[in-house]
């Protein structure tokens, strides 16, 4: 067969074109629902607002007074994340331990407590699902109404959502390790708590700590934006500056955001390396 001079046609071209067309057709209602109107971006009024706002980004507001305010808000953000994780642990440890199968005494043999144990575990699982299924920002929005504006609502919101996440993951970590020591301890008559401390914790401590540090890093990121619903921290400062369309302040806070997130990231990586 002589080599053809024109490049061969893609034999799959027709099928590909068909699928692409079908995908585009399916996309159309989605675009409608999301009110996808790029022209809005170039609307004269929006352009004027955004242009004026962005124009103020430079120079950033670096007055000593504002920086002091931002520094206080940054410390508040870090304190919120730390306090939130601490409270989350109070929720996560008992619920996570209740969920862990290898710490169940009733599971070893058909004893009288089996039904109650199963019921308790189902309840704990439901509670964890409810806690982590509702995003922390929704908890914050609700708690601001109960506790008023300020960091208290943010800390509790973090505690609820992260308590749910940590509890679930803790029980998974405990379950994924070697569970035989705990079983032996339980079978020879030790209590659940002792079986946890001497049978499961030594093998899982490092992973548990590492995951908790990772979650602390996520909590820093989350508490940065808590302020948008009035729950304290840097976000609240940002929200105020944005409502007043003060571009200089917003750019300063954005820079602090970036530094804070990078710092939390680096610290978390460093600590987890130290553990490994």
């Amino acid at each position: 067969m002589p080599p053809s001079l024109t490049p061969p046609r893609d034999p799959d071209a027709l099928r590909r074109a068909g699928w692409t067309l079908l995908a585009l057709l399916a996309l159309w209602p989605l675009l409608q629902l999301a009110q996808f109107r790029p022209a809005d971006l170039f609307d004269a009024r929006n352009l004027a607002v955004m242009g004026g706002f962005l124009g103020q980004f430079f120079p950033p507001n670096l007055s000593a007074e504002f920086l002091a305010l931002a520094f206080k808000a940054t410390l508040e953000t870090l304190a919120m994340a730390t306090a939130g994780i601490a409270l989350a642990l109070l929720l996560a440890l008992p619920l996570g331990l209740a969920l862990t199968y290898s710490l169940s005494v009733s599971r070893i043999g058909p004893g009288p407590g089996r039904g109650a144990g199963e019921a308790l575990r189902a309840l704990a699982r439901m509670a964890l699902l409810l806690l982590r299924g509702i995003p922390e920002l929704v908890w914050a929005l609700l708690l601001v109404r109960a506790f008023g504006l300020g960091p208290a609502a943010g800390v509790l919101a973090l505690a609820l959502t992260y308590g749910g996440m940590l509890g679930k993951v803790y029980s998974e970590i405990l379950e994924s390790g070697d569970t035989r020591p705990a079983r032996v301890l339980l079978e020879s008559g030790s209590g659940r708590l002792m079986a946890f401390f001497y049978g499961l914790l030594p093998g899982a401590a490092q992973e548990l700590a590492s995951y908790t540090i990772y979650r602390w890093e996520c909590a820093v990121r989350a508490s940065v934006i808590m302020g948008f619903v009035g729950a304290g921290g840097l976000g609240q400062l940002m929200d105020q500056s944005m409502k007043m369309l003060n571009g200089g302040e917003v750019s300063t806070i954005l820079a602090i955001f970036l530094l804070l997130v990078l710092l939390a990231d680096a610290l978390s990586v460093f600590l987890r390396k130290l553990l490994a």
Partner: protein
Amino acid sequence: MSGATFAERRAAMGFCLHCWTTLLLLALLVWASFSYLSLDLARLFSAESGRGMLQFIGRFFPPDASAEFLRKIAKGTLETLAISAVGTLLAAGAGLLLALPAAGRLGGELKALTRFLLNALRSVPELVWAALMVLAAGLGPFAGTLALALHTAGVLGRLFAESLENAPPEPARALLDSGAAPGLAFVYATLPAITPQLVSYSLYRWEMNIRMATVLGFVGAGGLGQMLYYELSLLHEPRASSVIIAMLALVVLVDATSAWVRRRQMRPGA
């Protein structure tokens, strides 16, 4: 065991100065955090505040389940899904475009520049993007879509660039050596090799974006979040609780679906 001497017991307990100082330091940090925020835990968990809390929760029950409001919620849910889907699609497209220079295929200067751009896009949280986009595009779901697209483009761009860098170079080399145009070599040799990875990264981000899209509405960027914010400001607690239930159902459904898909993928032969 009862015959163990004090020294033996101490050795068994393995007193570890390192551990105790770490724990003490952590406790100090936590205490400092609470005192800096001047959180009064005793008052927060007092009986009085508990009663107030119960009263507050009581106002959310029973949830509003009228047919008319449920229809609104269904529309809000669809809007949330559309925001997340379109946002993720836009991000995947932009991410792929940015990944080409970020993987160093168009020269060193462009590589550094796009890497910086991707980092900047990624480090601004979605909610902050949403607040900015509400200014740029007006209230509504379009602002939320753009916000998700901007943040996710930063994330996906970086991941895609890594996939591109790790893609096997031989197939493209073979096509180029036999005279194919560089664009065609990319489309027929490099892209098919990394497509599964690109798709799985995008699906994973879509899952996260569905969760995010439920709260973007708090700054006016559409979806279920905007409904919740609106109903709560009007003190319509029963309606707000219906919206929260819808959010919870959406998140749990997405979680279950992705867990199911992942299990299927892991099963050999499936």
